[in-house]
């Protein structure tokens, strides 16, 4: 976006932009996360939303438990095969555009649970945008992941130079 506020134009200034980048700018600063918390990581995710780490500073505090109103799914915690179909269905219910954060080792690749019931990484059935390692990752890491999503949204559809 280009900002111009030369006195020649009356002093109030104006912004030149494309519809797309304007929309992206809005999107990135008002993410509505859908916390898909299943296990230990969900507690750290609650920590991210709660007093000390406070995700609202990044414009992403409106946690929506209905997938229809969300655009960022934070999958936190072990996903078992019994849960996987639920996870996929909820992802399908989210409106486009949508992004996914895989929070924690279990969602990234099964983590310590190399067993008969656990999906070895949610990318077996979901497209993932940002992976966050750790068991569980610290809240700072999750905030970093949200910022990476913001970066990704900002660059979406931008011309390749």
């Amino acid at each position, binding site marked *: 976006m280009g900002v111009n506020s030369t006195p020649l134009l009356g002093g109030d200034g104006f912004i030149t932009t494309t519809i797309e980048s304007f929309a992206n700018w809005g999107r990135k600063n008002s993410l509505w996360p859908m*916390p*898909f*918390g*299943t*296990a*230990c990581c*969900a*507690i*750290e995710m*609650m*920590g991210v939303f*709660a*007093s*000390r780490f406070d995700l609202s500073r990044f414009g992403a505090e409106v946690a929506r*438990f209905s997938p229809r109103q969300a655009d960022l799914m934070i999958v936190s*915690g*072990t996903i*078992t095969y*019994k*849960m996987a179909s*639920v*996870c996929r269905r*909820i992802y399908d219910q989210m409106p486009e555009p949508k992004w996914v954060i895989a929070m924690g080792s279990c969602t990234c690749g099964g983590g*310590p*649970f*190399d*067993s*008969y*019931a*656990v999906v070895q990484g949610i990318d077996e059935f979901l497209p993932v945008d940002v992976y966050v390692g750790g*068991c*569980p990752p*610290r809240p700072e890491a999750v905030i970093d992941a949200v910022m990476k999503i913001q970066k990704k949204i900002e660059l979406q559809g931008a011309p390749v130079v």
Partner: protein
Amino acid sequence: MERVEFISEESVLDTETGARTETMMLNMGPQHPATHGVLRVVLHLDGEVVVKAIPHIGYLHRGIEKLCEHITYQMCLPYTDRMDYLASICNNIGFILSVEKLLGIEDEIPERAKTAEVILFELGRIESHLVGIGTNALDLGAMSAFLYCFKERERIYDILETVCGARLTTSYPRVGGLPLDLPDDFEEKVRNFLRIFPKTLTEVDKLLTRNRIWIERTKGIAFISAEDAIDLGLTGPALRGSGVPYDVRKAMPYLGYENYDFEVPVATDGDAYSRFLCRLEEMNQSLKIIEQALDNLPDGPYAADLPDVVLPKKELTYTKMESLIRHFVLVYEGFKPPAGEVQHAVENPKGELSYYLVSDGSGKPYRMRVRGPSFVNMQALPQMVKGSLVADVIAAIGSLDIVLGEIDR
């Protein structure tokens, strides 16, 4: 035009009005903010009254019991963290104690390690009760109590972080004592917490205990009688809220709990409010225990002098050949308890957590069974919510304070 009637097989004909009625099925979960994880409850409703509630679990079954059969005892420790992740340290200590019982080395654990474990155990209890009360309040619409509780949890996280480097999943104690001595500022930090925490406790108490809305939402809700509670095998605040004074710390003391002066809070009404009162008072008692333990925290060794069980100190591993070999053997093969089986119970924040270990004489457990308190407590839900309103189901689940990692394992 021909009239087509759809008559469900389950519908009941009302003879007075001639109308056909049937119960409505409402599916709650497994992805629902108020089910504390991935619990699914199928509710059969008559209007807004619950006729039948059927909990479905297993959405987080990760096969921990099976996984533990393939690794050494010491390696099982991180898995125990991830069961009741709201109070990981309590699970850790419970597991360590059962392995120590299996090895028969309980008497050799130094006092410093035991006292430190008591402090950490009670911190874990506070940590878990804070979430229990906070989320229960949040589900019933009281946002601020949740924020107060989480503020204090962060303080406990800070203490745990200085002790073991992790906030949530601690994996801290080892068979035979502690892996490292407590950090220098441990006592100061815990004392600081003891000074600050009662204020928050009073605030939560003020916010909820006499709050009209909170009382209306929890008093008389999710009732369970003492007989039913025993029959169903409930433990923890769920049992003590019904007036049964059973606490493993008193009944089958471990870690020297018999030497501490504390009460077991009991409430008699058997409803969600009683369970809340139990939790609140238990936190006060925990503070009392921590204070006594801190006053009596002895100096001296922090791990038992048992070369066959305890890993050698790191600096010795790097400098002495024998220590290196011992380290290698202990990590690769693990210690080998004699063939036999033990069960050891601890009073987890949510109830009785017991490990049943079967050894065949090798370095790996032949069978590790975990009796999670939430798993058994969860059975009471259908009985608790029968005949109550849909909104009370949320209060009931919250007051049971379940954690799905432990239910499904």
